[in-house]
C-alpha cells in the first residue's frame, strides 16, 4: 500500500521529463510530494515528542528515587542526634547544636541584627521598617542586578516576618468579595526568573492583586534566598493581600540536603548560622493552609483520610520544626534491636520505590517504615559510650501527622488512602478521600502543588483537585512550563502558563528536547555508575560463561531490578550500552564513559562507588560537623562520622581502608581534612563530555546504534 511506491514511479517519470524539457509538475505530483514531506516531518515530530516524554520519565523517576533517600537520611539524623554526643570528648554536642538548638526559639532576637553594622561601601538596598513600596522596588531592582541583601537587613526582615506570622492562625481564610481576583502560585524552588516573570505578567502584589504562594519557595534553585526575601518583604508590606503557605521544603532538614542551607552559607559567610536559625523559626510559623470563600482549600501537598481542618486549626504548628524529625516515643515502646533491624530492612528490602506516577498506582505498599524513632544509650559499636538524656520534648504524634499529611501527600488515581512510602511522609489519597473531605467541610475544590507537571498544572479526581506548579524548566531547560491560577468571585479557576527562556533566540523544539534529554541521560548514567557492582553481579548471573554479553531482555531485567526505575530500558538502550554484532548487549559498555573526578590511589572502586552514591548525604553530614564552615574537619571526626554512617547503613567498609583514606587526604599532615577536596574525588566525570556542543551532540547521536 502507500503513497511511497506511486511517488517513486511518478518522480521517476518526472526525471525523464526533465531531461527533455523543464515543465512545472502537475497538481497530482505536487500533492504526492507534499504528502510525503508531511508524513516524514510528522513522524520526526512524533519521535521528538516520544523523546520528550521518556526524558520526562527519567527525571521524575530519579527525583522520586532521590526522595526515597530522604527517609534514610532523616532516620540517620535522628539516630545521630540521639546517640552521638561529644565526638572528641571535650566540646558540646556538635550535632544537637544544629539539629536541635538548646536556645529557646522564642527568645527575642532583636539583638542579633541591631548590632550589625552596614559598611558605607555596601551598595545594595537599605531597608527601613516598616517596609514601603520603595523598599520592595529596591529589592526587585537589586536582585535583578545580582546584588545580595546585607545580612543585617535579612535578619531584620526575618525577625519582623516572625513577629507577623506568630499572630496568624494555621489556616488563613480569604474572601474574593473585596478583591478582583486572587492569584495562586505553586512551587518556585528558588527560581527567581519565574517569580519575576509572574510579577511581570500578572502584576506586583498589591491590594488589587492579591497572591497566595503555595509553599516550596526554597531549595534546588540557585536564588532561594532572593525568592524568599521578596516573598517575605511583600508579606510585610501587604499582610492582607499576600499569603504564604508552608511547603515541605520550608524545613531545615530538607534545606540541608536540597541546597538552601548551602546557598545561605555561601552568600552569608559571617552571619549564615543566625540567618538559618531564624529561617527555621519563620518556616515553622508559616500557615499550613488557605481557604478562599470557604470553598477552595489550598495546601502544599494534599490531604489524608485523617485530615481534619478543625483539628488542624487548633494545633501549635510551630512545634513541627521539621517533618523529618519523628515524634519521640517513650522508652518502653522502643527496642533497639528491632529498630536496628527495621533500619536495615528499610535499606535492603526497599520495596517501596515505585518510581513513576504510573507505577505508584500499581505498587502501593503499606510498610511502617516511619517507626524508626530511636532513642537509646550505650551503642556497642560507638567508641565513646555515653548515656544520652532525651534531648527534646515529645511531639504529639497526631499533630505531627496532621501537618506532615498536608505538606507531603500526593493524589492517586485509585480510591483509598495509603502511606506515601517513597516520600517517607504523608499519604497517597484517592478521589474518595478528596470527595469526603470536600463534603465534610463544604468545600468544592482542592488546590495543591508539590509535584512538577509538564504543562505547569494538572487536574485530577474529576476536576476536584488541581496541581499548580510555578517553576518552569524545573528539570532542565525546556522540560516543563510553569503556571498560576486566577480565581474571581465566581470561583472558576483560570490557568496562565509561561516558560522562562535563558536564551534570547527562540530555541526550536528539537534543541530543547536535545538539551533536556542530554541532561536526563547523564543523570541516568550516573545512577548506573553508582550501582555498578550490583549491576555487574546481576549481569554475570545471566552470563555464566563470562562472554561479557547478555540479551537485551536480560539487560533490561537487571537494570529494572537493581535500579528500580520504571523506565523504557529497551528504548533507552542505544544511549546506554553497545550491541555486539550478534545483537546482544556488551554490558560493560554501560560504564565505559564515566570515571571519578580526581583519582585517589587508596580508593578502591567499591569504595568509590559507595562514596559516590552517598555523596550528598556525606556532604551534608560534614557540613554539620564543620561548625565554623572552614571546610576542614579533624581526622578523628572524619573517622567517627564514617564509622557511624557505614554502621547505620549496614555498608561494610573496612576500617583500615577508611583510616588509610583519611591519612592520605590529610595532605599537609596537620591532622585535618579538607573535605571539599575529598568529595571532589567522588564526583562523576563524563569522559565523552565536550565543550563543543556539536561534538557532544554528534557523539551522543552516534553512540551505540
Amino acid at each position: 500500500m502507500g503513497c511511497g511506491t506511486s511517488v517513486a514511479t511518478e518522480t521517476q517519470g518526472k526525471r525523464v521529463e526533465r531531461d527533455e524539457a523543464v515543465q512545472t509538475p502537475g497538481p497530482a505530483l505536487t500533492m504526492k510530494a507534499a504528502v510525503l514531506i508531511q508524513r516524514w516531518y510528522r513522524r520526526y515530530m512524533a519521535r521528538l515528542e516520544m523523546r520528550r516524554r521518556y526524558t520526562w520519565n527519567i527525571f521524575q523517576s530519579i527525583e522520586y528515587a532521590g526522595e526515597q533517600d530522604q527517609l534514610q537520611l532523616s532516620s540517620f539524623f535522628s539516630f545521630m542526634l540521639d546517640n552521638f554526643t561529644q565526638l572528641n570528648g571535650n566540646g558540646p554536642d556538635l550535632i544537637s547544636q544544629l539539629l536541635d538548638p538548646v536556645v529557646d526559639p522564642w527568645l527575642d532576637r532583636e539583638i542579633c541584627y541591631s548590632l550589625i553594622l552596614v559598611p558605607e561601601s555596601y551598595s545594595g538596598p537599605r531597608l527601613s521598617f516598616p517596609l514601603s513600596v520603595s523598599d520592595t522596588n529596591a529589592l526587585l531592582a537589586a536582585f535583578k542586578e545580582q546584588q545580595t541583601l546585607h545580612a543585617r537587613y535579612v535578619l531584620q526582615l526575618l525577625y519582623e516576618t516572625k513577629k507577623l506570622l506568630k499572630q496568624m492562625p494555621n489556616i488563613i481564610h480569604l474572601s474574593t468579595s473585596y478583591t478582583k481576583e486572587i492569584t495562586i502560585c505553586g512551587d518556585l524552588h528558588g527560581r527567581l526568573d519565574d517569580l519575576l516573570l509572574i510579577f511581570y505578567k500578572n502584576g506586583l502584589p498589591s491590594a488589587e492583586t492579591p497572591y497566595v504562594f503555595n509553599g516550596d519557595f526554597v531549595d534546588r534553585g540557585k536564588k532561594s534566598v532572593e525568592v524568599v526575601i521578596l516573598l517575605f518583604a511583600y508579606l510585610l508590606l501587604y499582610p492582607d493581600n499576600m499569603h504564604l503557605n508552608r511547603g515541605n521544603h520550608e524545613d531545615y532538614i530538607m534545606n540541608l540536603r536540597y541546597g538552601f542551607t548551602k546557598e545561605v552559607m555561601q552568600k552569608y559567610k559571617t552571619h549564615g548560622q543566625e540567618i538559618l536559625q531564624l529561617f527555621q523559626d519563620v518556616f515553622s510559623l508559616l500557615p499550613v493552609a488557605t481557604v478562599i470563600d470557604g470553598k477552595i482549600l489550598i495546601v502544599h501537598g494534599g490531604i489524608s483520610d485523617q485530615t481534619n481542618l478543625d483539628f488542624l486549626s487548633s494545633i501549635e504548628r510551630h512545634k513541627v520544626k521539621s517533618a523529618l524529625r519523628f515524634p519521640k516515643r517513650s522508652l518502653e515502646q522502643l527496642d533497639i534491636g528491632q529498630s536496628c533491624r527495621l533500619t536495615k530492612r528499610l535499606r535492603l528490602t526497599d520495596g517501596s520505590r515505585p518510581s513513576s506516577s504510573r507505577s505508584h498506582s500499581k505498587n502501593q505498599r503499606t510498610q511502617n517504615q516511619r517507626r524508626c524513632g530511636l532513642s537509646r544509650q550505650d551503642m556497642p559499636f560507638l567508641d565513646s559510650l555515653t548515656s544520652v538524656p532525651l534531648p527534646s520534648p515529645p511531639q504529639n504524634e497526631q499533630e505531627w501527622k496532621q501537618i506532615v499529611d498536608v505538606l507531603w501527600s500526593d493524589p492517586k488515581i485509585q480510591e483509598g488512602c495509603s502511606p506515601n512510602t517513597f516520600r517517607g511522609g504523608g499519604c497517597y489519597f484517592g478521589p474518595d478521600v478528596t470527595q469526603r473531605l470536600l463534603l465534610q467541610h463544604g468545600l468544592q475544590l482542592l488546590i495543591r502543588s508539590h509535584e512538577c507537571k509538564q504543562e505547569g498544572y494538572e487536574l485530577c479526581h474529576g476536576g476536584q483537585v488541581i496541581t499548580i506548579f510555578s517553576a518552569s524548566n524545573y528539570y532542565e531547560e525546556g522540560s516543563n512550563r510553569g503556571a498560576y491560577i486566577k480565581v474571581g468571585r465566581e470561583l472558576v479557576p483560570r490557568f496562565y502558563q509561561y516558560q522562562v527562556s535563558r536564551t534570547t533566540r527562540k530555541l526550536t523544539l528539537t534543541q530543547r528536547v536535545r538539551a533536556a534529554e542530554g541532561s536526563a541521560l547523564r543523570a541516568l548514567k550516573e545512577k548506573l555508575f553508582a550501582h555498578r557492582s550490583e549491576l555487574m553481579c546481576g549481569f554475570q548471573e545471566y552470563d555464566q560463561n563470562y562472554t561479557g554479553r547478555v540479551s537485551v531482555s536480560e539487560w533490561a531485567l537487571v537494570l529494572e531490578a537493581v535500579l528500580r526505575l520504571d523506565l523504557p530500558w529497551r528504548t533507552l538502550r542505544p544511549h546506554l550500552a553497545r550491541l555486539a554484532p550478534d545483537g546482544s548487549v556488551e554490558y560493560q559498555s554501560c560504564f565505559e564513559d564515566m570515571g571519578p573526578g580526581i583519582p585517589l590511589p587508596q580508593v578502591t572502586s567499591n569504595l568509590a562507588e559507595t562514596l559516590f552514591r552517598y555523596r550528598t548525604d556525606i556532604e551534608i553530614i560534614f557540613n554539620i560537623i564543620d561548625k565554623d564552615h572552614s571546610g576542614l574537619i579533624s581526622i578523628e571526626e572524619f573517622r567517627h562520622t564514617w564509622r557511624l554512617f557505614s554502621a547505620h547503613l549496614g555498608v561494610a567498609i573496612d576500617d583500615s581502608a577508611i583510616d588509610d583514606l583519611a591519612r592520605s587526604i590529610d595532605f599537609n599532615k596537620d591532622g585535618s581534612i579538607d573535605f571539599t577536596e575529598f568529595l571532589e574525588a567522588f564526583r562523576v566525570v563524563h569522559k565523552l563530555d565536550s565543550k563543543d556542543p556539536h561534538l557532544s551532540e554528534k557523539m551522543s547521536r552516534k553512540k551505540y546504534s
Partner: protein
Amino acid sequence: MAESNNQSAETKLSDVHKRIKAAFETFDNAANNTVDVREIGTIIYSLGCFPSQADLHDFIAEVEEDHSGYIHLDRFLPAMTKVLLEHKFPPIPKDLLLQAFEVLDKDNKGYLEPEELTKYMTQEGEPFTQEEMEEMLTGLADHERNVIYYKDVINQLAIDPDM
C-alpha cells in the same frame, strides 16, 4: 535495532510485544491500559512506522472503542504487532524525500522560501495546522538566510538515533 538473528520467532514476537507496550504505556496516563486516540499517531511513528494520515485513520477505525476517543491495549497490541511484522508503513528513503522536495522547488533553487513551503504544507496533501507550520519553519529554516536548504535538512533530521 538489529536483534539477534538467532532468536527464535517466539522471542522475537515477545520483544515486539514489549516494544509496543512500552510505547503505549508512555501515553497511558491513567494507568488503565488506554490511551487517547489523538496520541496513536505519535505512538505508531515512534515504533518506526511512516503511516500517512489516511493510513492512520484506517488503523484507528479498526482499533478504537466505538468512538469513545480511547484505544485499549487489547486491541492495539494485535493490530500493531501485525503492522510491525508485516512492515506495513515502511520508512521513506532519503532519495525519495529529496525528489519530493525537488518537485516543490520548481525553480530549482536548491532551497525553498518559507512562503513557498508554507503554501504547500498548509494547502496541499494532508495539510499542516498553523502550529505545525510554525514549528517546522522555526526548526528547519536557516537562521541567517531564512530559507530552507532541504538537502541539509534531510541529512540533519535523518541522523537522529533510531529508537
